[in-house]
């Protein structure tokens, strides 16, 4: 077919030095991921010191703009910014002008007037981070947009795997559960494939999107398929997204009976991960969640250093040079 580029050049910001964003794992190359994980490792060492605060981002401003409830993501971004001495400002949709019906564009313009260096955004709608990127001069970090992407989660998962297992390449990761509604799954499939891991999705057919194999993964509807994996990544069964009468599965009871991750379904030594918050007794058996092979707390700890690395990378690498192409540039969206 003829090459057709759909791009709203009229609406792009003036061609000032390109700003880098982290909107999707698809914007990263393998080198970028390795650099970010290396930076996170350095920060992890620095956190072992008595004085945990680094002066690196002094004078920079990081805005956390959260349109969805979040505990671990918003707190770890806030702490990450503070550990790097940046000023932080957190805006939640409840109690803000968003409550009064302000459009995302106007909120972005309002916040942009304060010249923040980074805006971290979580929004229930796909494409919200791109929109904010279009109307502000800040670097944008996507902290979750609808069912699309949650890139820092995937990076912290890669970091956790590589710290615990010593490598990512060649590992086999089974992602189990509600892939359809999961931005975590989408970012992880891309990230794991990028780093050379083998990915198998396991779950009930209506919760595995048609055509997802094109992302470079395999699909199985049988829970037994997790036995072959080095890492079993359990997704949250997103009850809030299971509209009544949608009939993705007949009942949570049947889901748990058929696809719940239980001790019997695992083999000794398999590592288990979960992005949280967990529904204990639904997608994951409490015994599995609390076992020594579960990496769930390590994931939370990784979240802090990986988000420090992302903020650091966005704000300290100049626009020129090889690394400029590292993170997402607006216009390529």
């Amino acid at each position, binding site marked *: *077919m*003829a090459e*057709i*580029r*759909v*791009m*709203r*050049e*009229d609406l792009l910001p003036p061609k000032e030095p390109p700003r880098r964003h982290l909107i999707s794992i698809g914007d990263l190359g393998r080198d970028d991921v390795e650099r970010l994980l290396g930076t996170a490792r350095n920060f992890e060492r620095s956190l072992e010191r008595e004085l945990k605060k680094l002066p690196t981002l002094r004078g920079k401003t990081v805005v956390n703009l959260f349109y969805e409830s979040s505990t671990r993501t918003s707190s770890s971004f806030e702490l990450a910014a503070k550990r790097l001495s940046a000023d932080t400002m957190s805006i939640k949709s409840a109690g803000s002008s968003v409550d009064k019906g302000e*459009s*995302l*564009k106007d909120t972005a313009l309002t916040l942009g007037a304060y010249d923040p260096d980074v805006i971290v955004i979580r*929004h229930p*709608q*796909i*494409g*919200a981070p*791109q*929109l904010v990127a279009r109307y502000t001069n800040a670097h944008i970090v996507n902290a979750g*947009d*609808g*069912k*699309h*992407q949650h890139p820092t989660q995937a990076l912290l998962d890669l970091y956790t795997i590589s710290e615990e297992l010593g490598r990512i390449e060649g590992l086999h990761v089974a992602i189990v559960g509600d892939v359809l509604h999961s*931005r975590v799954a*989408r970012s992880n499939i891309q990230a794991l494939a990028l780093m050379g891991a083998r990915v198998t999705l396991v779950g009930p057919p209506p919760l595995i*999107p*048609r*055509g*997802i*194999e*094109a*992302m470079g993964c395999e699909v199985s509807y049988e829970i037994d398929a997790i036995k072959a994996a080095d890492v079993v990544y359990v997704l949250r069964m997103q009850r809030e997204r299971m509209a009544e009468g949608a009939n993705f599965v007949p009942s949570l009871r049947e889901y748990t009976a058929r696809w719940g991750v239980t001790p019997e379904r695992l083999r000794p030594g398999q590592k288990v991960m979960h992005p949280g918050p967990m529904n204990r007794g639904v997608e994951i058996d409490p015994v599995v969640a609390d076992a020594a092979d579960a990496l769930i707390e390590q994931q939370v700890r990784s979240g802090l250093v990986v988000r420090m690395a992302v903020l650091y990378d966005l704000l300290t690498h100049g626009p020129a040079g090889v690394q400029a192409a590292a993170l997402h540039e607006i216009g390529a*969206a």
Partner: protein
Amino acid sequence: MLFGKQGRDDLVIRGAHVLDTAAGVDAVLDVRVDGGTIVQLGTNLETNAHRVVDGQGLVLAPAFVDPHVHLRTPGREDEETIASGTAAAAAGGYCAILAMPNTEPVVDSAAVLGSLAETAQAEADVPVGFLAAITRNQGGAELTEMAELASAGAAAFTDDGQPVVAPGLMRRALQYGAVTRRRLALHCEEPTLSKGGQMHEGAVSAELGFEGYPSVAESLMVERDLALAAYERQPLHLLHLSARESVEALSRAQVAGVVATGEVTPHHLCLTDEAVRSLDPNVKMNPPLRAEEDRQALIAGLRDGTIGAVATDHAPHARHEKEVPFEAAPFGVTGLETAFSALYTHLVEPGLLKLETLLERMSAGPARAYGLDAPRIAVGAPANLVLLDLKASRRVSESDFRSRSANSWLLGQTVKGKVRLTIAAGRVAFEG
């Protein structure tokens, strides 16, 4: 059935490549128009002090007919009016358009229809036919007073924007609609399959995380409506086809003798779901952009005549309603002012479609689908002409639109093929 300004202009178009294959014209000729009627084709025609338009190097064709336009009036005059929409149509080379009834209020009574016809008579730069709703308030429950609406000038009937969900009601519409001698035009969408869908279901929606609107949501309803039309032996027209399976179903029905026509939009002919990766709200429409195999089936259907008409589905939206994340944006894009250039650039230039075929599918094809007189370049025919500059290119920009809305998927792109002159109903409606 058509309402708008009429003209009795006099002019001579000199030396254009006159192309109307159905009328057997394919030569460099002069065309003379007296009092709004084509009176002479030939060389070195007398001008008799008529205005002379230099057509050298340009193509003169029958002007276009758009069977699918949303004029947003009444109710959303901030997005489009009859005046702005018909000015946009004239700029796109159209000599007639058909307007959909999903306005606020819905065109479901002779009173609403009458007031629109009156406004159009005074304001419309190109004649407009108004479709009326099949069901009251497009609610899918009770038929409108179709006979009265037809007498009041309804061009056809449709619930466009909504399917007629209940098969029993669809059957009644086909049965009763026969007394109006007007076509039923159907928006085929099975709502429990398309529910929540943001884009075509496939590898791209799986990756982006959008809820899918599968092809079968359209083709299942196409199959149902064709089966009902066959059973009732009534004609019908299928709006904005997007899926390969729909084209195949239409072709099978036509072979079996069902009188069914179909239309396709420029965006479904030029783009696929890959375009949605941009997350640009201006590639969000219903039905959604589908896969490359669907696009190829639509092009093949247009080429072989299974699909007889190009329709823009021109759907203006206020700027602030599209300046939102993709998921929050309304469906629909504009098309009147870009249809020819888009299709010339993306189909004719790459050799996927002959220019003659495109011109036919943009003019006589849509007219035939609705039983309107096809624009012709023949002595005695009313002057409905478009003068095209195939060599000129332009960058599509918001400031050039005559439409009140600018939600075009072509913004920022460079396209070839420019409309230089449109004559609609004997009147010069556009010069550029």
